[in-house]
């Protein structure tokens, strides 16, 4: 019992130390117009738009009012997870002025999960988001 309490306490600590939580996967039916024509998902203090075409991935960041934020205000870590096999690969992102850019070759798979960890540089707060990307579309 003691071990269990300790384990739970450690787990709780490690989670809070990461200060990360899952982003909102659903917004109200597209009340937000995607400025770059991609898919927008909302976080508590910001919004993220992903534009994926073929191998190319572009990640745009905005504040809650959809005013563009500079890439320097955030750090973004991206991973691709393939369905069925659940194989995960890191995606290297290059910060640009207004967006992060990366590339991922899904090797013919119909879709993959793009997992993002977005950290706000000033607050250090981290959010996690998941987008389903269909590279063949």
């Amino acid at each position, binding site marked *: 019992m003691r071990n269990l309490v300790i384990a739970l306490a450690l787990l709780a600590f490690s989670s809070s130390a990461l200060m990360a939580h899952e982003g909102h996967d659903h917004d109200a039916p*597209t009340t937000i117009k995607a400025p770059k024509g991609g898919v927008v998902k909302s976080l508590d203090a910001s919004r993220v738009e992903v534009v994926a*075409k073929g191998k190319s991935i572009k990640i745009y960041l905005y504040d809650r009012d959809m005013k563009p934020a500079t890439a320097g205000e955030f750090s973004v870590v991206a991973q691709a997870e393939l369905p069925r096999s659940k194989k995960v690969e890191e995606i290297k992102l290059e910060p640009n002025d207004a967006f992060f850019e990366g590339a991922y070759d899904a090797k013919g798979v119909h879709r993959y999960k793009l997992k993002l960890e977005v950290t706000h540089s000033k607050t250090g707060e981290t959010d996690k988001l998941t987008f389903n990307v269909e590279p063949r579309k």
Partner: protein
Amino acid sequence: MLNQIIRFALNHRLLVLAITALSVVFGGATVTSLPIDVFPDITKPTVTIMTESHGMAPEEVETRVTLPVESFLNGIPGVERVRSQSGVGLSVIYVEFDWGTEIYRNRQLVQEKINLARERLPKDISPVMGPVGSLMGQIQQIAVYSKDNVIDPMEVRNIAEWVLRPRLMTIPGVAQVISIGGGLKQYQIRVSASKLNLHQLTMEQVDEELAQISQNTTGGFLEKDGQEYLVRNIGIVENLDDIKGTFVGLHFGKPVLIGDIAEVTEAPRLKRGDGSFNGKPAVVMTIQKQPGADTVTITKAIAKAINEIRPSLPAGIVVNPDVFKQSDFIEASIDGIVGKLKLGTVLVFVVLLVFLANLRMSIITITAIPVSFLVTALVFRLFGLSVNTMTLGGLAIAIGELVDDSIVDVENVYRRLRENTKSLRPRSVLKVIYDASSEVRNSIVLATVIIALVFLPLFSLDGLEGRLFAPLGVAYLSALAASLLVSLTLTPVLCSFFLRGKVNAHGDTKFVLWLKNLDKKILEWALPRSRLVIGVALSLFAASMSLTGFMGRDFLPKFNEGTAMIAIIAPPGISLAESNKIGAAAESIMLAIPEIRSVSRKTGRAELDEHAAGVHVSEIDVDFHEKGRPREAVLNDLRTKLKEKFPTVGVNVGQPISHLIDHMLSGVNAALAIKIFGRDLNVLREKAIELEAAIADTNGIVDLRVEEQSLVPQVKIHVMRDEAARYGLSAGQVTKLLEVAFNGEVVAQILEDNRSYEVFFQFDESSRASIENMQKTVLKIMPTGQKVTVEMVADVYEVFGPNEINRENGQRRIVISGNLSGRDLGGVVKEIQDKVRTKVEFPEGYYVVYGGQFESQQAATNKIVLFGLISILGIALILMNNYQSKAITAQIMVTIPFAFIGGVLLLFFTDRSITVASLVGFITLCGVASRNAIMMISHYLHLMRYENESFTRDMIIRGSQERLVPVLMTASVTSLALIPLIFSKGQPGSEVLHPVAVVIVGGLLSSTILDIIVTPTIFYRYGRQSAEKYVKLQSIEQEI
């Protein structure tokens, strides 16, 4: 030949009277039977192809249905534009043909191509053509609802569908009745996935059994006792119990029935649309008429039919046929114009009495108006024209000119008869009338030919403007031709009856004498000061032309339809229930505005509708009280309140017919359509948002919005072929089973009292409630007893996809649309073009096109100006041919710019906008203005040739004085006849005619004043040589 006509008429006076009487009676009868409409038929020949595509996503609809069909359609002769909309499970293609093509031929060509395209489409997908439509086709809306909501919405729809609709469809002229709202009754089999599992049954088995749930077959014939009996095998279902008792499989040897695995109920069919009236749920029925059918007659027949049915309806059912009636607009418009025609005729008669001071002469002259009108009615019948605001407008413009020819004839006949009575050896009255009529016939015919010539550009216009103004031209020219015939036949005959033996030595009235003295004084001052007079005239012309720079440019004036249509566009992806809530809230806001009488709403798409609106779109028809604030103020108030309440919802405020006209011009229900073309949907969306932001602050643009082509959430079940194969399933089998389970299918029909209802089969709500439940759906049970679920053979995930994909002429496009308020179209578009050029960059392969009314306005203006110049050249050639003198021709032609001075000035102070309608006014003005100058200069030449006058100042003054009364009368009757239209700005039916009248009246005022002063001055200064040469040439020709 003209002399022979006059001679024949005078020799057969009773015959002329009899033919006139017959024409009047026949014309009168024809008038009452002509179809009545607001406008001429302005429908562009368009064929709509609709393809239901079994719940496919828009991308699939585009690639598998729209594109194959489109590829066959391009290349059909006469096709001008192919537009398409690929939505969820529906492809709609609009094939727009040239205006001149015949709709039934077009349909035949399209049908041939559809037959070819069918082979390239997925199995069981069949494109069908929509009915022959008409822009003015939606003539009425009827709301059917339950008072105090005591009757079930499904029953309300039942009454609309099975009691009202069949009766309304029998009314001659009704093409279609489309209902939305309530609920279409269905027998539904809602299969529980868990019960299916419990009984060890698969979807495949259930689907196989249900395919045969309701079947009658034949057993051939049985011979018995020398008789032949037809053997019938009865297996159809007739009620809920029959369905429940249907066998679907065995479970441990025990039969499993539908009732064991499913809930069977009577329930409304899945709704993709809903309706309401004044904020309460209702079935809204839209009546469409057949092309060419008479709207007013159909509306009366509908009212009669509803009154007949009403007593048989259940208590508590309300049928309101007055939700929207196009006939109200038609009657208001036609009554308005007819009233103006009557007032115009009275004013013309007053002018005749004032100038002629003779009741008999006035009556003979005014006869030309009704006779010409009734003969024109016969021409309408011959050309298949309807009585509408444009044909009546043609008559209104012509009304003053109809009496002109008769005035000239009657006045000359009277003068010659008076001279004859004074003569020592009087000739016979008939001979005098013949000579007098022959004397003036040349100038009458020449003037009429010139007026006809200036109208020719109207017949060369195509597009909407051509459809609108050509009937006006036909009416105008028919009336004018009839009046010419009347002046050559009936007028001399009436003169012979009414002016015989009673001609007094009647001189000018005091008023006319005063006018002539004034004219003399003015000319005595002006003739020696020709440079000053011409200089002032040129300055006035230059000043008036400079005003055009301060005037706006619009396509057509705004119509006042009496009702408004508000489109509420919620974000795509919203459910029907949520969209309904927004629509209902919008209705509440509207009903709180005191000027609004009633509102009816259609959200989404009705079952038979060819308008492919998604559930996120609500169209609200608004009817107004007559009193209250101006309409523009009410609409702006409404717009503001709606935007405050729903900041993220698109609002488009318009009028029903104007909306349809806009849609016909650009495929968009707004006055301005900025279209971005390109390949990638993401880029199109991105650029559309950039463009919207760039032009959002443009003054005068309202209802600005980007077409709702956005991403909506989807759940994809992607079959993994290799995994499915492991369980003996192909991808096709899996998707078919899933379609039946989640989308459902109609497996039979149940007949009840001649009403047929669908038997529908689908998984119940709980089996489809979540992705997890969907994943657990059993597709198959293996011989080992293993259950094969969806997640074992497919990847189920959420993703976003486009809600619809729109294409035009083979390319994807997105539209940014807007309406205008308080500013002209030309100015707004110019500002927008500048902003787009500087602020928005387009990648390679992407470009922008400005459409809507702007496109039509530019094309129409260019055509009118070009053909107008050609007609002016034609006038010059005719004048050259008649006078054989460039100088005389030039002097007549110079009056045209003078006429423009008044036209531009009055337009500046009234409408301050140049439209296609005002350009038509300028065209008309060219003819009328040159007519006055012809009359004036011809008379100078007549005096020199026949009355031994030489080219002196006195001759000019005498000639001007003698022509003063006809010139003033012509101008007065034409202007006064149009005065009622000048004061009817924005009134229903007068919208297009008002600017035409403004330009003609303004132009006539300036051209008449300047004709009286400037034409004699110019002729006096520059005309001597040419006049003397003309008279000499004429004398030589006569001698030869």
